């Protein structure tokens, strides 16, 4: 009973869904206000999602309905587990999970993998191009993201662990400096992970319709949208755990800090999305190979040297 409450209410489904929807709505509203438009209401993602639930499914021929719905459903379950293994206040005291960052990293990659599989599986040329682009981008931004989380795990001196809780509790002056240095890399890799504007290469609307999701409709599309909202909630709260003293204060203030951190991250995203245009794939890989991955590696080495001196 307790576990079901965790799974469906507080750190699980309802919390992730509402937080993700509000973050997406907030970002769209903010983007509109920055362009001097009025913009959709903040609750717009919920309307979009609930509308899709009642729609008919028009799937391509020669595809079984079971697989068509199973591919988007697997990452939904994975992301719910991902929410459960994050040390949210009011939950981490009684939880017996180990809050493993590697597991969170792995589970948040599943939506993208499912999109790639769906793109190839749907037999649509646009889906295949989108899936191929997503598969190429995968290696670049995950390189940066792995550097960032490895740097952060070095903060909690030997023995090193990828426990999110110990990273969130590392607040020495040197730790804070290193954490601030890794913020731009975190923002860039999460921008690419969420396919937001300078890196919206896999679902470039003017060129390849909607990329891997071109053939998705009805409930399948709703599940993909739900996955996206849960991803937003996970990355928003991951930002707060990394860069705000969430677990150092009382649980209530910690929860407020998580919300503030997530909304601040999406404020930055709205700013970046408005200020930049979509890159080409070659520009994207050049940016990551020439600048971001070497710099992130440099920060990792510096951290290693400081921590072992």
């Amino acid at each position: 009973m307790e576990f079901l409450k965790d799974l469906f209410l507080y750190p699980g489904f309802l919390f992730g869904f509402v937080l993700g929807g509000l973050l997406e709505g907030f970002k769209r509203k903010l983007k509109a206000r920055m362009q001097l438009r009025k913009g959709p209401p903040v609750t717009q993602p919920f309307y979009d999602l609930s509308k899709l639930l009642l729609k008919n499914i028009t799937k391509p021929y020669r595809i079984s309905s079971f697989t068509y719905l199973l591919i988007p459903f697997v990452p939904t379950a994975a992301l719910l587990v991902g929410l459960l293994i994050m040390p949210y206040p009011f939950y981490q005291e009684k939880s017996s999970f180990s809050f493993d960052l590697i597991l969170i990293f792995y589970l948040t990659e599943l939506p993208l993998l499912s999109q790639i599989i769906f793109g190839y599986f749907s037999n649509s040329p646009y889906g295949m191009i989108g899936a191929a682009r997503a598969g190429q981008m995968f290696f670049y931004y995950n390189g940066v993201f792995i550097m960032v989380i490895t740097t952060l795990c070095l903060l909690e001196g030997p023995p090193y662990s990828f426990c999110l809780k110990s990273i969130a509790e590392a607040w020495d002056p040197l730790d804070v400096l290193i954490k601030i240095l890794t913020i731009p890399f975190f923002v860039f890799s999460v921008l690419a992970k969420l396919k937001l504007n300078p890196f919206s290469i896999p679902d470039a609307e003017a060129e390849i319709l909607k990329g891997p999701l071109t053939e998705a409709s009805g409930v399948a599309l709703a599940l993909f949208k739900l996955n996206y909202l849960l991803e937003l909630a996970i990355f928003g709260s991951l930002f707060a755990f990394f860069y705000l003293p969430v677990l150092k204060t009382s649980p209530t203030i910690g929860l407020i800090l998580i919300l503030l951190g997530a909304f601040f991250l999406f404020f930055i995203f709205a700013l970046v999305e408005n200020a930049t245009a979509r890159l080409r794939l070659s520009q994207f890989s050049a940016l990551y190979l020439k600048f971001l991955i070497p710099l992130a590696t440099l920060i990792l080495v510096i951290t290693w040297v400081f921590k072992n001196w």
Partner: protein
Amino acid sequence: MFLDAIKQFLRYSQKKSLWVFHVNTGSCNGCDIEILALFSSKYDAERFGIKLVGSPKHADILLVTGPVTTKSRDPLLRAYDMMPKPKAVVSVGVCSLSGGVFAKSYNVLGPVDNFIPVHVYVGGCSAHPNMILEGILRAAQILCEEEELWSF
């Protein structure tokens, strides 16, 4: 009763979230430019939840501009078939209503409603963005309230 309330809410959200797919069946691009203006910051259709989508499989409303020509008939019918139900069609501009200045050309087959059912007609050459916006919102009203469209 509880299920009815949920269903009512889902239908209400259909009215608030309209994804539009745009097909040009041979117009002079005048109406297409007005449709693009509709999504710019001056007219801002996004404030009603209207979004231009790239794939007909995501769309609720089909915007058709221009008279149907011999070459564009099959793509139009295929795009219409690909849209999931419930769906509505808005024909934009006088050419899609009657053929306009292109009527009786050698390759023009006729207005759009000879081929697919049209719910809202928006006249004008070219149609004004505010008129297109009103057309889409009326189509949303029809989409939400017409029982016929929900029988599938």
